[in-house]
């Protein structure tokens, strides 16, 4: 399909770049002393990113809406998690809700 050499180079660049992104945080943290307040801010930043991932992964697909089944599944999982249900139940209920809705023809 594509020039295999170009494909190999592209994969290696993506791999090296991704590793650099992952490695940069830990390396920076050992070089620079971080006050407690900034440390707390960094932890919050990770939660903010994860929450944004949840929102976009639950509600969107590409540049549009994800339909009904997936958000409904995540909602069921979220309510269960909020009520402190066991993790396994949260995950299985989310998947099952979406799967059953799709089986019923809900997009």
């Amino acid at each position, binding site marked *: 399909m594509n020039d295999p050499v170009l*494909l190999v*180079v*592209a*994969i*290696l*660049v*993506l791999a090296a770049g*991704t590793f650099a*992104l*992952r*490695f*940069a*945080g*830990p*390396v*920076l*943290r*050992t070089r620079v002393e*971080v*006050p*407690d*307040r900034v440390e707390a*801010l*960094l*932890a*919050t930043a*990770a*939660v*903010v*990113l*994860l*929450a*944004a*991932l*949840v*929102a*976009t*992964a639950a*509600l*969107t697909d590409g*540049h*549009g809406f*994800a339909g009904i089944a997936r*958000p*409904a*599944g*995540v909602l069921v*999982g*979220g309510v269960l*998690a*909020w009520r402190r249900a*066991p*993790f*396994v139940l*949260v*995950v299985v209920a*989310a*998947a099952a809700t*979406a799967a059953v809705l*799709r089986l019923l023809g809900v997009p």
Partner: protein
Amino acid sequence: MRSIWRTLDRTLDRALDRGLLRDIALVCVADCVVGVSYGAIAVGSGFDLWVPVALSLLVFAGASQFLFVGIVAAGGSPIAATVAGLLVNGRHLPFGLAVSNVLGHGWRRAAGSHLMTDETVAFALGQDDADRRRAAYWVCGVGIFLCWNAGVLAGGLAGSVISDTDAFGLDAAFPAVLLALVLPSLRDRTTRRPALAGAAVALAATPFLPAGLPVLLALAGLLLTLSRDPDKTKDKTKDKNKDKEPVS
């Protein structure tokens, strides 16, 4: 590799309970199934087996791998696919800043960095003390790495066995996994406000921006934590100097 297991063994004894192991195992299984579909989709859209396998071993970041294969399979240039993949993986930089203290030093830091995923970060942040955080991170990281790569290889070999994981609702399971793991942090108001604001920003930006950027833009939600504390922001430089000593 052997010393990874030794590290795991030590931390496991100390910190991991069965419930956490079961939760991590569940996520590993789910990742494996998605890996099977990824391998099958990649081979099904015309790639040789080595392409998804190399991407999974070397890049090891699901969303960017799907994007890479999707763009190239659709006739896009591999360079564009690489740029798009890097953009999606940009969130690992702030993740690394947040979890650096669970990684350790030397080769462990390098290996641990490669194992960084949304799930490992979420599992680590969900634990209360440092030992549990470290254990959760490593067990989850190694587990997902093995399961994901085994899945991709199996899917690539088997062809289009499972190409539509949506039928099982797995696309709903992954946001639910992350949601369940961050919910305890979200019960804290000072974290909830920036998180909700950030999620709103990301959602609003999704129709207009390339994948990956909306999630990074969510960091704007952090401004809420600063603006709520006018006194502390004003004294930022003073604080920095004052706090330098006690940090280990």
